[in-house]
Protein backbone atom coordinates (compact mmCIF):
# COMPACT_ATOMS: atom_id res chain seq x y z
CA UNK A 1 0.00 0.00 0.00
CA UNK A 2 2.80 2.37 0.94
CA UNK A 3 4.67 1.43 -2.24
CA UNK A 4 1.62 2.06 -4.42
CA UNK A 5 0.88 5.40 -2.77
CA UNK A 6 4.52 6.40 -3.08
CA UNK A 7 4.63 5.52 -6.80
CA UNK A 8 1.39 7.38 -7.54
CA UNK A 9 2.29 10.57 -5.71
CA UNK A 10 5.98 10.62 -6.60
CA UNK A 11 4.90 10.22 -10.23
CA UNK A 12 2.39 13.07 -9.88
CA UNK A 13 5.10 15.16 -8.27
CA UNK A 14 7.60 14.59 -11.08
CA UNK A 15 4.94 15.04 -13.77
CA UNK A 16 3.91 18.36 -12.22
CA UNK A 17 7.50 19.57 -11.99
CA UNK A 18 8.24 18.64 -15.62
CA UNK A 19 4.97 20.23 -16.73
CA UNK A 20 6.01 23.41 -14.90
CA UNK A 21 9.08 23.55 -17.14
CA UNK A 22 7.22 22.76 -20.36
CA UNK A 23 4.30 25.17 -20.04
CA UNK A 24 4.73 28.61 -21.56
CA UNK A 25 1.87 30.36 -19.81
CA UNK A 26 2.60 31.30 -16.16
CA UNK A 27 -0.88 30.33 -14.94
CA UNK A 28 -0.36 26.76 -16.20
CA UNK A 29 3.01 26.64 -14.45
CA UNK A 30 1.35 27.85 -11.23
CA UNK A 31 -1.31 25.11 -11.44
CA UNK A 32 1.37 22.43 -11.98
CA UNK A 33 3.24 23.76 -8.95
CA UNK A 34 0.05 23.30 -6.90
CA UNK A 35 -0.04 19.65 -8.04
CA UNK A 36 3.59 19.22 -6.95
CA UNK A 37 2.95 20.76 -3.54
CA UNK A 38 -0.22 18.78 -2.85
CA UNK A 39 1.39 15.46 -3.73
CA UNK A 40 4.37 16.41 -1.55
CA UNK A 41 1.89 16.85 1.32
CA UNK A 42 0.77 13.22 0.80
CA UNK A 43 4.42 12.10 0.82
CA UNK A 44 4.94 13.97 4.12
CA UNK A 45 1.95 12.10 5.53
CA UNK A 46 3.47 8.80 4.36
CA UNK A 47 6.64 9.76 6.25
CA UNK A 48 4.62 10.40 9.40
CA UNK A 49 4.70 14.20 9.44
CA UNK A 50 1.03 14.99 9.91
CA UNK A 51 1.42 18.62 10.96
CA UNK A 52 3.72 19.39 8.03
CA UNK A 53 1.32 17.77 5.59
CA UNK A 54 -1.44 20.11 6.80
CA UNK A 55 0.91 23.12 6.83
CA UNK A 56 2.14 22.27 3.33
CA UNK A 57 -1.40 22.38 1.96
CA UNK A 58 -2.46 25.47 3.92
CA UNK A 59 0.72 27.55 3.57
CA UNK A 60 2.22 26.42 0.29
CA UNK A 61 -0.63 25.11 -1.88
CA UNK A 62 -3.03 27.58 -0.28
CA UNK A 63 -1.51 30.90 0.67
CA UNK A 64 1.66 31.14 -1.41
CA UNK A 65 0.16 29.78 -4.62
CA UNK A 66 -2.91 32.00 -4.30
CA UNK A 67 -0.48 34.93 -4.03
CA UNK A 68 1.27 33.69 -7.18
CA UNK A 69 -1.94 33.31 -9.19
CA UNK A 70 -3.10 36.73 -7.98
CA UNK A 71 0.09 38.33 -9.27
CA UNK A 72 -0.07 36.42 -12.58
CA UNK A 73 -3.62 37.64 -13.14
CA UNK A 74 -2.96 41.15 -11.84
CA UNK A 75 0.00 41.70 -14.16
CA UNK A 76 -1.85 39.96 -17.02
CA UNK A 77 1.29 37.99 -17.77
CA UNK A 78 1.13 36.54 -21.26
CA UNK A 79 2.99 33.73 -22.93
CA UNK A 80 6.73 33.86 -22.61
CA UNK A 81 8.84 33.55 -25.72
CA UNK A 82 10.63 30.24 -25.48
CA UNK A 83 14.37 30.28 -25.32
CA UNK A 84 16.36 27.27 -24.26
CA UNK A 85 18.59 29.10 -21.81
CA UNK A 86 21.47 31.47 -22.28
CA UNK A 87 25.00 30.54 -23.33
CA UNK A 88 26.19 30.79 -19.72
CA UNK A 89 23.44 28.36 -18.73
CA UNK A 90 24.60 25.83 -21.33
CA UNK A 91 28.32 26.11 -20.58
CA UNK A 92 28.15 26.24 -16.77
CA UNK A 93 24.57 25.76 -15.58
CA UNK A 94 23.43 22.48 -17.09
CA UNK A 95 26.76 20.61 -16.62
CA UNK A 96 26.75 21.77 -12.99
CA UNK A 97 23.18 20.56 -12.45
CA UNK A 98 24.00 17.20 -14.00
CA UNK A 99 27.12 16.86 -11.87
CA UNK A 100 25.28 17.78 -8.66
CA UNK A 101 22.46 15.34 -9.41
CA UNK A 102 24.94 12.57 -10.26
CA UNK A 103 26.96 13.13 -7.07
CA UNK A 104 23.87 13.26 -4.84
CA UNK A 105 22.37 10.15 -6.49
CA UNK A 106 25.63 8.22 -6.11
CA UNK A 107 25.95 9.19 -2.45
CA UNK A 108 22.34 8.27 -1.72
CA UNK A 109 22.49 4.92 -3.52
CA UNK A 110 25.71 3.94 -1.74
CA UNK A 111 24.66 5.21 1.66
CA UNK A 112 24.61 2.55 4.36
CA UNK A 113 22.05 2.40 7.10
CA UNK A 114 19.21 4.24 5.41
CA UNK A 115 16.03 2.67 6.68
CA UNK A 116 12.72 1.94 5.06
CA UNK A 117 9.34 3.62 5.40
CA UNK A 118 6.26 1.49 5.79
CA UNK A 119 2.65 2.07 6.63
CA UNK A 120 2.15 1.98 10.36
CA UNK A 121 5.41 3.63 11.30
CA UNK A 122 4.96 6.05 14.13
CA UNK A 123 3.37 9.34 13.22
CA UNK A 124 4.89 12.42 14.81
CA UNK A 125 1.89 13.99 16.47
CA UNK A 126 1.35 17.72 16.48
CA UNK A 127 1.50 17.62 20.27
CA UNK A 128 4.99 16.12 20.20
CA UNK A 129 6.16 18.67 17.64
CA UNK A 130 4.71 21.68 19.41
CA UNK A 131 6.10 20.67 22.80
CA UNK A 132 9.61 20.83 21.33
CA UNK A 133 8.82 23.98 19.34
CA UNK A 134 7.44 25.93 22.27
CA UNK A 135 9.98 24.86 24.89
CA UNK A 136 13.39 24.33 23.34
CA UNK A 137 12.95 26.44 20.20
CA UNK A 138 10.80 29.27 21.54
CA UNK A 139 13.29 32.04 20.69
CA UNK A 140 13.66 31.12 16.97
CA UNK A 141 9.86 30.86 16.76
CA UNK A 142 9.42 34.38 18.15
CA UNK A 143 12.15 35.72 15.86
CA UNK A 144 10.20 34.22 12.93
CA UNK A 145 7.18 36.31 13.86
CA UNK A 146 9.36 39.44 13.70
CA UNK A 147 10.61 38.28 10.28
CA UNK A 148 7.04 37.89 9.02
CA UNK A 149 6.17 41.36 10.34
CA UNK A 150 9.15 42.90 8.54
CA UNK A 151 8.18 41.02 5.36
CA UNK A 152 4.64 42.43 5.53
CA UNK A 153 5.97 45.97 5.99
CA UNK A 154 8.45 45.49 3.14
CA UNK A 155 5.80 44.11 0.80
CA UNK A 156 3.46 47.03 1.51
CA UNK A 157 6.26 49.58 1.11
CA UNK A 158 7.38 48.03 -2.18
CA UNK A 159 4.01 47.46 -3.78
CA UNK A 160 2.35 50.83 -3.18
CA UNK A 161 2.79 53.74 -5.57
CA UNK A 162 5.60 55.96 -4.37
CA UNK A 163 4.20 59.36 -3.43
CA UNK A 164 7.20 61.23 -4.82
CA UNK A 165 6.42 59.98 -8.33
CA UNK A 166 2.75 60.88 -8.02
CA UNK A 167 3.66 64.38 -6.85
CA UNK A 168 6.02 65.01 -9.73
CA UNK A 169 3.41 63.54 -12.09
CA UNK A 170 0.84 65.99 -10.67
CA UNK A 171 3.28 68.87 -11.07
CA UNK A 172 3.89 67.95 -14.69
CA UNK A 173 0.13 67.87 -15.31
CA UNK A 174 -0.31 71.26 -13.69
CA UNK A 175 2.53 72.88 -15.64
CA UNK A 176 1.19 71.21 -18.80
CA UNK A 177 -2.09 73.03 -18.29
Amino acid at each position, binding site marked *: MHLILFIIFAGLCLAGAINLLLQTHPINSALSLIVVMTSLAVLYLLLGAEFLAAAQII*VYAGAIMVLFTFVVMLLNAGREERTMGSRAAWTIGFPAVTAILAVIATVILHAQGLGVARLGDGITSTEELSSVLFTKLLLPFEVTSVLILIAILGAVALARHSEVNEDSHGDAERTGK
Partner: protein
Amino acid sequence: MNSFFAQEVPLSWYLLLSAILFSLGVVGFLIKRNLITVFMSIELMLNGVNLSFVTFAHQWHAVKGQIFVFFVMMVAAAEAAVGLAIIIAVFRARATLAVDRIDRMKL
Protein backbone atom coordinates in the same frame (compact mmCIF):
# COMPACT_ATOMS: atom_id res chain seq x y z
CA MET B 1 -2.92 -9.75 1.31
CA ASN B 2 -0.75 -9.22 4.38
CA SER B 3 2.41 -9.04 2.32
CA PHE B 4 0.67 -6.55 0.06
CA PHE B 5 0.14 -4.19 2.96
CA ALA B 6 3.61 -4.80 4.36
CA GLN B 7 5.33 -3.47 1.28
CA GLU B 8 7.88 -0.88 2.22
CA VAL B 9 9.70 1.88 0.43
CA PRO B 10 13.44 2.51 0.94
CA LEU B 11 14.11 6.00 2.20
CA SER B 12 16.70 6.44 -0.54
CA TRP B 13 13.84 6.67 -3.05
CA TYR B 14 12.46 9.67 -1.20
CA LEU B 15 15.92 11.26 -1.18
CA LEU B 16 16.32 10.60 -4.91
CA LEU B 17 12.93 12.20 -5.55
CA SER B 18 13.98 15.27 -3.58
CA ALA B 19 17.28 15.51 -5.52
CA ILE B 20 15.41 15.25 -8.85
CA LEU B 21 12.90 17.92 -7.77
CA PHE B 22 15.76 20.23 -6.76
CA SER B 23 17.51 19.68 -10.13
CA LEU B 24 14.28 20.34 -12.04
CA GLY B 25 13.98 23.57 -10.08
CA VAL B 26 17.49 24.61 -11.11
CA VAL B 27 16.78 23.73 -14.77
CA GLY B 28 13.58 25.77 -14.61
CA PHE B 29 15.52 28.67 -13.13
CA LEU B 30 17.92 28.50 -16.10
CA ILE B 31 15.51 28.02 -19.02
CA LYS B 32 12.48 30.04 -17.91
CA ARG B 33 12.25 33.56 -19.28
CA ASN B 34 9.36 34.91 -17.21
CA LEU B 35 10.11 36.54 -13.86
CA ILE B 36 7.18 34.85 -12.11
CA THR B 37 8.02 31.37 -13.42
CA VAL B 38 11.65 31.82 -12.39
CA PHE B 39 10.34 32.58 -8.90
CA MET B 40 8.16 29.43 -9.02
CA SER B 41 11.25 27.37 -9.86
CA ILE B 42 12.88 28.66 -6.67
CA GLU B 43 9.83 27.50 -4.71
CA LEU B 44 10.20 24.08 -6.37
CA MET B 45 13.82 23.88 -5.19
CA LEU B 46 12.75 24.79 -1.64
CA ASN B 47 10.14 22.03 -1.71
CA GLY B 48 12.68 19.47 -2.89
CA VAL B 49 14.96 20.32 0.03
CA ASN B 50 12.02 20.16 2.46
CA LEU B 51 11.26 16.60 1.36
CA SER B 52 14.79 15.48 2.23
CA PHE B 53 14.49 17.17 5.65
CA VAL B 54 11.29 15.22 6.38
CA THR B 55 12.90 12.00 5.13
CA PHE B 56 15.88 12.37 7.47
CA ALA B 57 13.55 13.30 10.35
CA HIS B 58 11.80 9.97 9.72
CA GLN B 59 15.12 8.12 9.51
CA TRP B 60 16.40 9.31 12.88
CA HIS B 61 13.02 9.81 14.58
CA ALA B 62 14.02 13.43 15.15
CA VAL B 63 11.32 16.04 15.64
CA LYS B 64 13.76 18.88 15.01
CA GLY B 65 14.03 18.01 11.33
CA GLN B 66 10.30 18.60 10.93
CA ILE B 67 10.53 21.85 12.89
CA PHE B 68 13.24 22.99 10.49
CA VAL B 69 10.83 22.42 7.60
CA PHE B 70 8.28 24.51 9.48
CA PHE B 71 10.78 27.37 9.67
CA VAL B 72 11.64 26.98 5.98
CA MET B 73 7.93 27.31 5.19
CA MET B 74 7.67 30.51 7.22
CA VAL B 75 10.72 32.00 5.51
CA ALA B 76 9.35 30.93 2.11
CA ALA B 77 6.07 32.70 2.87
CA ALA B 78 7.91 35.90 3.79
CA GLU B 79 10.10 35.53 0.71
CA ALA B 80 7.08 35.06 -1.57
CA ALA B 81 5.38 38.18 -0.17
CA VAL B 82 8.46 40.39 -0.62
CA GLY B 83 9.46 38.82 -3.96
CA LEU B 84 6.04 39.27 -5.52
CA ALA B 85 5.94 42.88 -4.28
CA ILE B 86 9.29 43.44 -6.00
CA ILE B 87 7.91 41.83 -9.19
CA ILE B 88 4.92 44.21 -9.10
CA ALA B 89 7.25 47.20 -8.61
CA VAL B 90 9.47 46.05 -11.50
CA PHE B 91 6.46 45.53 -13.76
CA ARG B 92 5.19 49.00 -12.91
CA ALA B 93 8.53 50.55 -13.87
CA ARG B 94 9.30 48.45 -16.98
CA ALA B 95 5.92 47.09 -18.17
CA THR B 96 7.54 43.74 -18.93
CA LEU B 97 8.20 40.48 -17.09
CA ALA B 98 10.85 39.07 -19.46
CA VAL B 99 14.07 38.64 -17.50
CA ASP B 100 16.18 39.39 -20.58
CA ARG B 101 14.77 42.91 -20.72
CA ILE B 102 15.19 43.58 -17.01
CA ASP B 103 18.93 44.12 -16.98
CA ARG B 104 19.30 47.10 -14.65
CA MET B 105 18.49 47.26 -10.97
CA LYS B 106 17.97 51.01 -11.09
CA LEU B 107 14.43 52.01 -11.93
